[in-house]
């Protein structure tokens, strides 16, 4: 069925935006078949964002844990410090092609917001970013960056003041300004064609990693590990390996304070089938379908749904999903900083944490690739707070 991954996905959205979404689908399909569009997209990936990103062998870390070889796909080295810009460049170029003058986006950790504000600035487009007020508090550095970049940052005070509310806020603005506005969704979520479109703009991560590991090791990896909130960095690195059945794909969700508490964001692990933000997928909800508050130390993972293609990969058994607590992620954050001199985003630290657990159980001839989706500058305040350190 159109726009479906098995039973997941779809277009559960108000009638007001149906024509816009259908137009987007047509324009996206045309653009992806247009050599000049793809050339332009790859031009900006290279010249503006600095791709390709390295696939770095983390020797010290691998040797310390004594098992599998751990490689890091360095998405943190992108311009703006995370994988988010891959997708933003694609969508904003598409918006320009469609003649849209105004760009809006939601953001949780602020990485997608910063990437969107950045690209909008480069193309001199009007830009408004919607962000939950709790996230604005947690990510004040990124909020200030967006403002420097000329974007308007609108606080969403409804609900839990986090990512899901930012999505709802952006969605409401989009409905009201459908004629001139392009909504740049930051993850593989929302109504069709967004999950497919965002995946296709993020698959560059996996395409590069596939080529790089073959150059370095002469073979494909045994495991690919990525953190999952909405799931775009994971989908981007997983997708080019889906047909390679020998490569195990592992998504790492946020277990927050623990899966036995109600303070987590482990949607696949603990959720049930539902509909949120235009898609049918796994959702953290009560028996009446009310969306539950979610929690994670990382503002980029605390979303109560998950991209529909992940739900599908889980159901058909092609990928597996696990969860890492705040504490485990913080330990991995420090460990990667100390052992490799790389300060990861707290989101990405969830993937690192699971890689370290897994590596010790594997023999030395095994290979793990961890998608290091972002860098940790934005999290320094949060980590300091957790460590009881007061920054000036």
């Amino acid at each position, binding site marked *: 069925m159109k726009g479906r991954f098995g039973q997941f996905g779809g277009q559960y959205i108000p009638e007001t935006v149906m024509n816009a979404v259908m137009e987007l689908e047509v324009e996206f399909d045309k653009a992806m078949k247009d050599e000049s569009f793809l050339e332009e997209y790859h031009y900006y990936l290279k010249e503006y964002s600095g791709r390709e990103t390295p696939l770095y062998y983390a020797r010290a870390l691998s040797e310390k844990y004594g098992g599998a070889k751990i490689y890091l796909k360095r998405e943190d080295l992108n311009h703006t410090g995370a994988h988010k810009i891959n997708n933003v460049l694609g969508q904003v170029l598409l918006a320009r092609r469609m003649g849209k003058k105004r760009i809006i986006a939601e953001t949780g950790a602020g990485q997608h917001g910063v990437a969107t504000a950045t690209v909008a600035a480069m193309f001199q487009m009007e830009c408004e970013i919607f962000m939950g007020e709790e996230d604005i508090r947690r990510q004040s550095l990124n909020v200030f960056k967006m403002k420097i970049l000329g974007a308007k940052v609108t606080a969403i005070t409804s609900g839990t003041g986090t990512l899901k509310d930012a999505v709802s806020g952006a969605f409401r603005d989009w*409905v009201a300004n459908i004629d001139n506005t392009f909504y740049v969704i930051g993850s593989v979520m929302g109504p069709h064609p967004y999950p497919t479109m965002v995946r296709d703009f993020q698959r560059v991560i996996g395409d590069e990693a596939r080529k790089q590991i073959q150059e370095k090791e002469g073979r494909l990896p045994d495991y690919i590990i990525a953190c999952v909130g909405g799931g775009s960095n994971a989908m981007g690195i997983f997708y080019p390996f889906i047909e390679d059945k020998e490569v195990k794909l592992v998504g790492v969700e946020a277990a927050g304070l623990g899966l036995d508490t109600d303070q987590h964001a482990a949607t696949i692990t603990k959720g049930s089938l539902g509909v949120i933000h235009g898609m049918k997928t796994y959702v953290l909800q009560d028996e009446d379908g009310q969306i539950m508050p979610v929690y994670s130390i990382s503002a980029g993972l605390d979303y109560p749904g998950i991209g529909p293609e992940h739900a599908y990969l889980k159901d058909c058994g092609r990928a597996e999903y696990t969860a890492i607590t705040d504490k485990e992620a913080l330990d991995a954050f420090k460990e990667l900083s100390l052992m490799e001199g790389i300060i990861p985003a707290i989101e990405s630290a969830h993937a690192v944490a699971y890689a370290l657990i897994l590596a010790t159980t594997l023999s030395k001839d095994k290979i793990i690739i961890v998608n290091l989706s972002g860098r940790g500058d934005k999290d320094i305040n949060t980590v300091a707070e957790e460590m009881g350190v007061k920054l000036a």
Partner: protein
Amino acid sequence: MNRIDVKFDELKEKNEKALITFITAGDPNRDTTVHLVLAMEKAGADIVEIGIPYSDPVADGIVIQESSIRALKNGIKISNIMDIVKDIRKQSSIPLLYLVYYNCIFKFGIERFMEECNAAGIDGLIIPDLPLEERGEIAELAFRNNVYIVPMVAPTSEERVKSILHNGRGFVYCVSTNGVTGTRDKIATDLESYMNLVKRYSKIPRAIGFGVSSSVMAEEFSKYCEGVIVGSAIIKLIAAAKDKKEAVSKVSGFVRELKRAML
């Protein structure tokens, strides 16, 4: 015969337009919801929409969002709302619809939801996030339980209007303007050409909703259609009232004024 059809037939006989009013179930509490529905009927409302509060209502503006939050904080559940409808039905045969987001139906269980609607006396559903393309999964169960799924069109629908209205039943909900629910001073849509387009494909009555803030606007809108839907303006009165008695009296007065303006 569905109560919605009976009502529109009656109104047509009398050459009247339908006044459709909206309140959120459980805001401020379940007893008041029952009283408000009965009071609105007495004051001239022809059809009532009862909102099932939802945690993430993307089609709603701030007034209905806050109303939903108040109701959910009161702990209201779908099963309580079914009981509210049963209580109303003991005293009234006014057509009743739920305004409900799809996830509430889906998670509750589509079949169970439709059966309970039928048993309680619900005549139709307005589901703002379930467009034509996704209606297949509920159409049959709704039909079997004599629950209408009210088709929705928007000013952006254009060539979609025909397929949306194919086999439409009850009435067609015409969203007045691009955006979310909420009172507005005026709307930018050319209602006349929009309503003419809808009429070309519609065998059922047309009701306009979103943005109606006053009896003046209700009167203006009613010239172009067979019904006018008023929601946020009523919710505001309930939110501002100091107690149940004041809420019921303020809402009754406003509904009376709306109906009079539309005559």
